[in-house]
């Protein structure tokens, strides 16, 4: 077992390599050693003893990063006992970090990674402030072995779903959020008074206010779910007032104010295949991702349904069908989310020194005709088996083999 866990030296040879950080390289080698990318190029010396993967005629990309969902936190959404992502009874759950709810044995993890998604955000759910999202690699027998970054950000909701936490009004939501932020700063200034109970009541627990301080000092992003144009503008306004680092999630009507989002330098997470209008976003449309990207917004793509995280590449393909360039779309599922989540020094591209999350595809990763041939996570080749492939084998010929 120990030997198995030791990182391998792997040379992926002969493939068309898409480093994302630079132009594609034909007939190139990706060398992986000790869990990291050791070399990328056409003139790479392959150490003796390296495991060789012949990728001739194949495409080699970084593992895809899905910036959404409850991976590891949810086994079956309709079975409450298998859900760990929501801290019930606390509308301001800033201190709620989901890490210890992660289940490395989740069946969703192999199902997802065999389709080329190697890294996902694990996002809490909730009311107004949901908690802290963490980034995980889709391999590891322990929580510690999976977590790539914790926390990535504190998640807050400014969509219509949060209105209950604002007395039924968007204005109430915004005002409550400001009051919480001001209280956190007040709490920071007067910790001693607080501990002596010499302060007025604060709008959240000390732990939750404390957890907001990295956000209020610009060290940790505030990830805001907002879809309506005016909600996005509210998020930008509050971020300006408190000098926050903002990440927008959803942003269905973002295309209508792409210029403002660009000016604010705010990265955006978009689900391209959403276009069903609701009162939260009547302007929702397929072209959102493309129009934002064209305007210069840093767009990452996401698949919000946890069990469908593997459809991230279909999201990307559809983003291309509706106007994104292919290069933008590949970046939007690799390096751009890595940048948004503050891990671009380790993730998102095939560059020397980065964590070796690599996928070998039979062709264009976004096409249905393309299959996954090899998945490497943290430098280790992953078995392409999942509960679903095992069900297939059991029932491939009937009657089944019990």
């Amino acid at each position: 077992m120990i030997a198995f866990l030791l990182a391998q030296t792997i040379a992926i040879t002969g493939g068309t390599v898409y480093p994302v950080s630079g132009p594609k390289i034909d007939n190139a080698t990706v060398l992986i050693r000790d869990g990291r990318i050791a070399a990328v190029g056409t003139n790479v010396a392959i150490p003796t003893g390296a495991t060789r993967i012949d990728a001739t005629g194949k495409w080699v990309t970084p593992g895809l990063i899905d910036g959404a969902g409850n991976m590891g936190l949810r086994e079956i959404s309709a079975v409450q006992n298998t859900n760990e992502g929501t801290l019930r009874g606390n509308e301001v759950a800033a201190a709620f970090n989901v890490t210890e709810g992660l289940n490395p044995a989740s069946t969703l993890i192999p199902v997802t990674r065999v389709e080329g998604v190697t890294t996902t955000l694990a996002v809490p759910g909730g009311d107004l402030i949901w908690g802290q999202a963490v980034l995980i690699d889709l391999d590891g027998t322990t929580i510690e072995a999976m977590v790539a970054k914790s926390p990535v950000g504190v998640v807050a909701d400014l969509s219509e779903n949060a209105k209950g936490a604002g007395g039924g009004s968007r204005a109430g939501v915004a005002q409550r959020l400001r009051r919480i932020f001001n209280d956190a700063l007040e709490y920071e200034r007067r910790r001693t008074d607080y501990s002596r109970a010499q302060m007025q009541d604060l709008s959240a627990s000390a732990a939750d206010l404390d957890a907001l301080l990295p956000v209020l000092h610009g060290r940790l992003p505030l990830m805001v779910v907002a879809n309506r144009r005016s909600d996005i503008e509210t998020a930008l306004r509050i971020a300006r007032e408190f000098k926050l680092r903002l990440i927008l999630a959803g942003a269905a009507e973002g295309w209508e104010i792409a210029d403002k989002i660009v000016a604010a330098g705010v990265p955006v997470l978009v689900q391209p295949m959403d276009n069903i209008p609701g009162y939260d976003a009547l302007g929702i449309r397929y072209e959102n991702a493309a129009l934002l990207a064209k305007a210069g917004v840093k767009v990452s793509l996401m698949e919000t349904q946890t069990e469908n995280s593997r459809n991230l590449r279909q999201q990307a393909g559809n983003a291309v069908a509706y106007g994104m360039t292919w290069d933008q779309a590949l970046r939007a599922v690799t390096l751009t989310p890595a940048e948004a989540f503050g891990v671009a020094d380790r993730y998102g591209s095939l560059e020397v020194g980065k964590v070796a999350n690599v996928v070998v595809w039979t062709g264009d990763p976004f096409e249905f005709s393309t299959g996954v041939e090899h998945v490497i996570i943290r430098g280790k080749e992953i078995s392409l088996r999942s509960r679903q492939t095992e069900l297939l084998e059991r029932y491939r010929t009937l009657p089944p083999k019990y």
Partner: protein
Amino acid sequence: MDRPQYPSTYKRHPNPPVVIRNATIMTATGQEIQGGSILFRDGRIVSVGTTVDAPADAVVVDGTGKWVTPGVIDTHSHIGVYPAPGTWAESDGNEATNPVTAEVWAEHSVWPQDPQIPLAIAGGVTTIQALPGSANLIGGRSAILKLVPARSVQEMKFPGAHYGLKMACGENPKRVYQNRGPSTRMGNMAGYRAAFIQAEQYRRRWDKWNKDHSGDAPTRDLKLESLAEVLRGNIFVQNHCYRADEMMQMLDLAHEFGFKIRSFHHAVEAYKIADVLAREGTAVSVWADWWGFKEEAMDGIYENAALVQQAGGIPVIHSDDASGIQRLNQEAAKAMYHGRRAGIQVTRDQALRWFTANPAWVLGLDSIVGTLEPGKMADIVVWSADPLSVYARAMQVYNDGWLVYDRNDPAHQPKMDFTIGREP
């Protein structure tokens, strides 16, 4: 019952003859014609092939670089009964007041101004089965609709189509009615059986009276009328059922009362009993890859449709979703390629039939729509690329010969009333 019973008022929209030239034509009858042409007039396909003579008044569409397929058909939609914007006010899909509501008809809920309709049209969809939801054991009659802009559902009703009867297994009915029953799967079964026992008696009474007209006609009962029509084979059973073992129970139920289940829907475990389903002649309407959102959906696999195909069954890719209905071609492609990668032979034509000819059969319309053959209704989609590619978009959609959608022409991009005055 001589008076008209909620008749269809559908009328074909006048349209000049159209010939699409030099396209790749996928007929869903086994042919993929390179450099092909298709001529249709008065709502009917006239000819398909490499040499097609067109009349002088025909509109010529350059199909160079384009693909042409039959219109997409979805056997499982809630468009109209669960419209956008998704508020309570228009949510009319589940009459969740009684476990057996065979008396309700989905067409009486369909809102023809649902803004999801033009979105589905832009995905190439020409015919849908709008179903009641799955809260009930027996949820009511479905509506088979031409997906065209209209003022009323009557103007959308596919003329002559068989009604479907929505039935549902498993978790949904036993959850919705847990306080009054059914609260278990055995309770579910007892509920269907009790309903059909009543229906048998009702049918006998009416069949006798229709024959001899002696005395007063029996009292009409809308619920039993729907079920009696199932027993007579005039209404097709459309059965939401995920698990293999439950499908087997439902087949027993059908045998007990002598009706056919036309299609199981959702059927994520169809692959476990693909041999039985093929033998029974029951189609399976499935997603390419939905799984895991509830316990009875845990065993979904990508290869489901391909394995059903391999066993000689009738796979259909359905949506059950206003988003998914816009890309049934993509979902079929996903299921086909995953099947192939697992070593299961699936042809492109078979995969095309999963969202055209096979759903037409499920709705009993396979002699009218679902393939590109002379005499068939001119329900036709022109795609920007191979429809089994993620990059393909429907460029033109003809429904009964009427150009209902043209991606390059705003004059042919229908908008529902809901959207008017709300666009940014």
